[in-house]
């Protein structure tokens, strides 16, 4: 009895009881589920992953054929999800930086545009924006035979946007050499990089591949499907509004005195921004930016509304073909948890690096 009056012992006992209750509920749910599934004659288990998927995936970063297995279909869906997540985060960050700086600008027109953009984009649901861009992409552009050609080799059609392309291998080589030159010759960084990049392309005799109308549609070059284009446009424009607000807020959080101090030292405004304001603003910016990146990754699942085959759409199709909803959803949950945790780990590491070092 005296033991029970000890606050620590009592606290420990309560915690053990709570843990047991939680474990009990989980076990009960698991047992109930498997019993319900077998009573309804629904297959369970993971053996379906080895069977051929047989359904098509309209576009993918990784090679895919309907003869491949369900497991590979998941991997292909995951590849698409990572691809659009990375592009969306990159695009939204660049655009958002511009919008954030515009919102802080002394030019009233620019500042008005920046805040106006944020107000409109942030207040419309993403799914509505995606459907709008998709409707525009398929309804406003002409059929392939009557394609618009705003620039030579650039075709806008309701089947997608077709661009001239450089052969991938030569392009990769040129980018790699250009980057290496920029890193080695630090003094002429930009110029050296561009020069080496261009020289590589000329020396390897890279020829630009132009899209050509053949049969139903264009072949050759780079093809951006309407689904992909609408998705990227929608997600980048939407996310950039949030990113812009976060950046504007971060800059505003740095005391005005810091600007004045920079000017007093005779630094130009641009240098003040880069050397004094941004390093301090980043500490305020990074934590909310982490959440924003995580939302962006999760928002990619809305792609199924416009028919882009990211992991969510693949999982839906697999559930239809196999009927194994619980297994498929566990995979979906596991994958998104892994992606999200990786993004937060990365951002936390960056945050720790940028934090004020206390010696």
């Amino acid at each position, binding site marked *: 009895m005296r033991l029970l009056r000890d606050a620590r012992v009592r606290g420990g006992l309560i915690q053990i009881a709570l843990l047991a209750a939680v474990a009990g509920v989980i076990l009960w749910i698991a047992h*109930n589920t498997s019993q319900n599934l077998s009573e*309804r004659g*629904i297959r369970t288990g993971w053996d379906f992953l080895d069977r051929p998927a047989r359904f098509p995936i*309209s576009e993918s970063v990784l090679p895919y054929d309907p*003869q491949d297995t369900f497991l590979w279909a998941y991997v292909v869906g995951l590849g698409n999800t990572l691809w659009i997540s990375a592009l969306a985060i990159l695009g939204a960050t660049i655009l958002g930086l511009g919008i954030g700086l515009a919102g802080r600008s002394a030019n009233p027109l620019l500042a008005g545009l920046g805040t106006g953009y944020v107000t409109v984009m942030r207040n419309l649901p993403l799914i509505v924006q995606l459907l709008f861009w998709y409707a525009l992409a*398929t309804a406003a552009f002409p059929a392939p035979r009557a394609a618009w050609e705003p620039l030579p080799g650039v075709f806008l059609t*309701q089947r997608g946007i077709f661009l001239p392309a450089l052969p991938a291998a030569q392009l990769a080589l040129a980018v790699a050499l250009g980057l290496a030159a920029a890193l080695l010759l630090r003094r002429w960084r930009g110029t050296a990089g561009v020069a080496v990049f261009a020289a590589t392309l000329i020396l390897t005799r890279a020829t630009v591949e132009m899209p050509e109308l053949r049969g139903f549609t264009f072949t050759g070059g780079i093809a951006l499907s309407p689904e992909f284009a609408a998705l990227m446009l929608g997600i980048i424009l939407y996310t950039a509004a949030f990113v812009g607000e976060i950046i504007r807020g971060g800059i505003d959080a740095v005391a005005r005195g810091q600007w004045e101090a920079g000017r007093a030292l005779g630094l130009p405004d641009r240098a003040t921004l880069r050397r004094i304001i941004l390093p301090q603003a980043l500490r305020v910016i990074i934590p909310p930016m982490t959440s924003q990146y995580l939302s962006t990754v999760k928002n990619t699942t809305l792609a199924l509304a416009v028919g882009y085959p990211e992991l969510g759409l693949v999982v839906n*199709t697999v*559930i239809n*073909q196999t009927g194994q909803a619980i297994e498929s959803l566990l995979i979906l949950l596991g994958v998104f948890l892994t992606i999200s945790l990786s993004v937060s780990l990365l951002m936390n590491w960056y945050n720790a690096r940028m934090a004020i070092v206390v010696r």
Partner: protein
Amino acid sequence: MKHIALAAFTLALPAAAHGATTLETVKDRGRLICGASQGTVGFGAPDSDGTWRGLDIDTCRAVAVAVFGDKDTVDFVPLSGQQRIPALQTGEIDILPRTLTWTLQRDANGIDFTSPNYYEFTGFMLPKAMGIERVEDMAGAAVCVQTGSTTEVVVADVSDKLDLDLQPVVFDNTSATRQAFFSGRCDALITDAAALASVRATQAENPDDYVIFPATDYMDALTPAVRHGDNQWKDIVTWSIEAMKSAELLGITSQNIDTFEGSTDPRIRRFLGIDPGNGTALGLQDDFAANIIREVGNYAEVFDRNVGKDSSLKLERGANALYKDGGLMFPLTFQ
């Protein structure tokens, strides 16, 4: 994400829910709940008054008559292609007659099929202006596909078999798929040929601008399904459908059924329940078949009214004629 709700529903179902048969559940509830399409005129769609009409709808009404004697004691739940099977498995609906193809994988995995109510090719619909009238000429075509249907696999199979390199564009709901086709995103739309005819008649600006042809050289049996494991309920649904087919074979319609009351033909007497036994064997009233014909009609009436000569679709009976007329509809023996 509807699947998450459905999966959560499966998780949460108490094991004790097991025990009541579907017939008892339906009777306790006082209404039948039927899975319907999101609007395929002819098979299942609400009309301008909000009343559900269609071949699949009448199939549900027939079952409602068998159980309650009233064709209006049924509620319809519109479901997308991918929601429909989980909805049946989890008990959200009692019967699923939603242009559902009878396949081995579905049959083996938690649902049971009853009796086919429509035989159909999978078809392609294309704008006539493209000048294409057979699958072999479709190389490279973009095809709008709805997920959760057998047509996804058909596209891949046809593309592989004939080396056509078809470009599927997959959507998760019916209206998005059709809208993408009519806006010109795809060259072709694939689904059951009868559903294509319905889409063409009701959604095309000018129906004559579109051509429909079969995508495969085999037919599918569109068959209402029930949950796996309740044989009594499966029998009730099967024989409600069979009643409509048999009535056509016996020449009984909703108009002339009263003239058969004094019939001396033992087949007709058994069918109408004048000689008892058939209904009670299923756990129903003996005159359940007569009530179905009186309230809903025989298969020919249901076909003509919804998709046939008295409808806007004007489809031929074709494979859906009785076997004696050269079709595939084979009424089973009512005794």
